[in-house]
């Protein structure tokens, strides 16, 4: 039997949405308040969904502690309480939650091998969320 398991994690980070390819005026027009030069922050809620056959001996798709460990080491340690704009990963891109979702998916795809990575979902606020499944 194939089941999907989703685990939710919280991290807090600051960012500023600003593209070097746009003029200051265009940045303000596109990003509005998110273009504030001093940045702002969010409590991000990250949901990671994995899937696979339920192991008959354990009743589990994978050991949850493996997933927790990878997410703590690879994602929370990297992005919790930091300024996303200053992270090397965003040297060449705007730290929108679209880009953050894709980045986190790609990092987990590379580092988590205990089950199939289905989807990453990020709530930037209670009002908006983003999903990326690798395509």
């Amino acid at each position, binding site marked *: 039997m194939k*089941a*999907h*398991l989703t685990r*939710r994690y919280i991290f807090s980070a600051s960012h500023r949405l600003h593209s070097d390819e746009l003029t200051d005026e265009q940045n303000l027009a596109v990003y509005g308040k998110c273009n504030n030069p001093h940045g702002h922050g969010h409590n991000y809620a990250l949901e990671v969904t994995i899937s696979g056959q339920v192991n008959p001996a354990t009743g*589990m798709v994978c050991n949850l502690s493996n997933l927790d460990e990878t997410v703590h080491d690879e994602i929370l340690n990297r992005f919790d309480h930091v300024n996303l704009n200053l992270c090397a990963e965003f040297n060449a891109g705007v730290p929108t939650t679209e880009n953050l979702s894709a980045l986190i998916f790609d990092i987990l795809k590379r580092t988590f091998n205990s089950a199939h990575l289905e989807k990453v979902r990020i709530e930037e606020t209670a009002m908006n969320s983003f999903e990326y499944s690798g395509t």
Partner: protein
Amino acid sequence: MVYLTRKCEFSASHYYHNPEFTEEENRRVFGKCANLNGHGHNYTLEVTVKGEVDRKTGFVVDLKELKDILNREVVDALDHRHLNKEVPEFANQVPTTENLAIAIWYRLQSHLRRAKLHRVRVYELPDLFVDFYGEA
């Protein structure tokens, strides 16, 4: 096609233990969940059914009927129970959230008439849930 989701809650106790594992393996694989004195959760169940909207009633499913099925097949059977000791599906398998979602799917599936079961989602904690779509 319209999808309808109904939510309900139940509270139950369980422990994780495979008699084919040594005690050391049980502790290593299941951690704190292997404590044979058990522990419990407030589970939240979301059941999603799908179907065409009936032109006469405007319903995908008779919600009262769905509520009755959920109460009879799931809540009455699992609420304030010990999953390992009182629920037949777990006499010989570990009552993980994965297996619980699968067991609930099969408890509900045969009772639905018009609408088809689409997804069973079981929250063990607000930050941990399992989805089962009936996939082999």
